[in-house]
């Protein structure tokens, strides 16, 4: 697990108030929404804000793949690295 993935997992746990969870409990490819971690649409919004704030990046409104970026931790980490490189 990369450092960035680890950081994102902790961000998810802290910003969404998930009790009794640690970064090790979230698989990098585990779906965050629906049947996976069980997050909901409001979490998606909260997480979107938290990610932008923490990493100083912007979600591009032209980007059609926003949903895809938030599918799991691996995608989120890839998305954050890509945006940070811009």
């Amino acid at each position, binding site marked *: 697990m990369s450092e960035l993935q680890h950081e994102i997992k902790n961000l998810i746990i802290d910003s*969404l*108030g998930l009790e009794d*969870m640690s970064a090790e409990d979230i698989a990098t490819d585990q779906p965050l929404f629906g049947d996976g971690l069980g997050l*909901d649409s409001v979490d*998606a*919004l909260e997480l979107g804000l938290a990610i932008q704030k923490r990493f100083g990046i912007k979600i591009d*409104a*032209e980007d059609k793949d926003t949903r895809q970026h938030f599918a799991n931790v691996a995608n989120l980490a890839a998305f954050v690295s890509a945006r940070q490189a811009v």
Partner: protein
Amino acid sequence: MKWIALEALLLEPDAQRSITFEPALNHQQFCRQALQLAGYFAAHRIQRVAIHLDDAAELAIALFAAWQASVTVLLPADAQPQTRARLASQTDLWLDALPDTQGCTPAQSSPLATDACLLTLCTSGSSGEPKLIDKTLAQLANEVAALEQLWGSEIGSAAVISSVSAQHIYGLLFRVLWPLCAGRVFLRQTLPFSEDMQRASLPHSAFIWVASPALLKRTSDNLDWSALSRIRKIFSSGGALPEEAAAYLQARLQQFPTEIYGSSETGGIGWRQGGQHWQPFAGVAISRNPQGALSLTSSYLPAGHREETADAVQIEADGRFLLGARLDRIIKLEEKRISLPMLENTLIQHPWVTDARVGVRQLGRAVVGALIALSPAGLHALRNQGRRATTQALRTHLSSHVEPIALPRQWRLYTELPYNSQGKLAQSRIEQLLAAQRPTQVLPDSIEQTTDGLLIKLQVPVDLAHFSGHFSRAPVVPGVVQIDWALHLARQLIADLPPRFTGMEVLKFQQLMRPGDRVQLSLRFDANRSKLYFSFTNSNAPCSSGRILLAQHA
């Protein structure tokens, strides 16, 4: 575009009239598909259909097909397995995709029956049981006509972009039925993020948003506000929009969102655009009932029917009104109506739970928290599988009954809930307990003076804070916590104990102390040696013992 009354929407197919795009659908195609599907319903002798479709245009086709075929539509708020099972006896067909209607003879179009109850909405009732609400087409038609009257000219031919589901009354009226009648195009999908809303909006020369506080209070600051300021109207409904969020949008878009107040039961009641006061809709007569709650009659309700809400209200001399808190235990969580009694009743059905109370905490988002009294089986699960597995099992149990947003994220575990001496546990107290840290110390059940010291009986708290990390699958009281308890209790109970901790001697840990264990702690202070002797035993078997070395200040 020419206004077409709701009941006449299938009568004159018009290929020039757009319904939606990506993929495009014009009115002629819409009518053809709806009549074809009406033929399918007739051929299969369907009388009641449950419709759950994410695509708003497909939902519109299915609705009008059903109404043309005199099929009653049930619009479930969610597609949870329990919801499906519960509604199964009341429907002939659960539609979550449009069926293949090839080979079916299309139905003949005719004006729809406006006085028949052809739509049933599902929502959470105050008893915790889901409530079914019947609507006639006339009620819906009155409501969309009133909306057009109020805002039609302002909105003009704007495209309708939305973040709310069309399965609920607000989305159904504002993003499907109203645009259909007015000849405005509407987006098929429900968009989760404000960035998505922007991307879908900007290709249109004019657009409106049908949104909710959940989205509007979380718009990100990197939106292209100057491009978005072409927006004709922003609607928000499902709960009050916080003042800061309204002001934030006003500063960027030069208009306050237009908030709609109403519910599935009541239909639209009033609206406001900035400020605190609500303006009742034209066909709505409101009053304050003896309980202080808003009561109404309305042209969006059956004639002569008075609907009582549970919302506290204050009515001004000019007819506008202010809303207060809800007077029952139904709460709005990010626009989703959640029945607290329903959650509690469902939790209590689990064999690990003897009693349960739930409340809400406002973190970055609102989350549900639960106070749980564990049964012996629940305590066994906690001791042998850990806290996370225990609470996760309760979440899984709930998840087939309620939407994900209502699943508790915070848990406080007990053997008995902390009712006060009147046997009450007020909602405010529940919320305090959820906000408080989990215990780190232990309270003695009894204290006995013996010949050479103290004998203290205590029960290991089932929800000790240390159990989360130690260990996640098999919670035990860490040794350092046992020493801390011994010293902490000794300082409370033994006078003149030297203040300084200098070390430990002959420390032994022999048996684990686990959640709910009833143990005895003996304490003896040897003043000559300045040593505090402690030992924990569980039914005479030693758990731990040692000597704590104390000293006066250096």
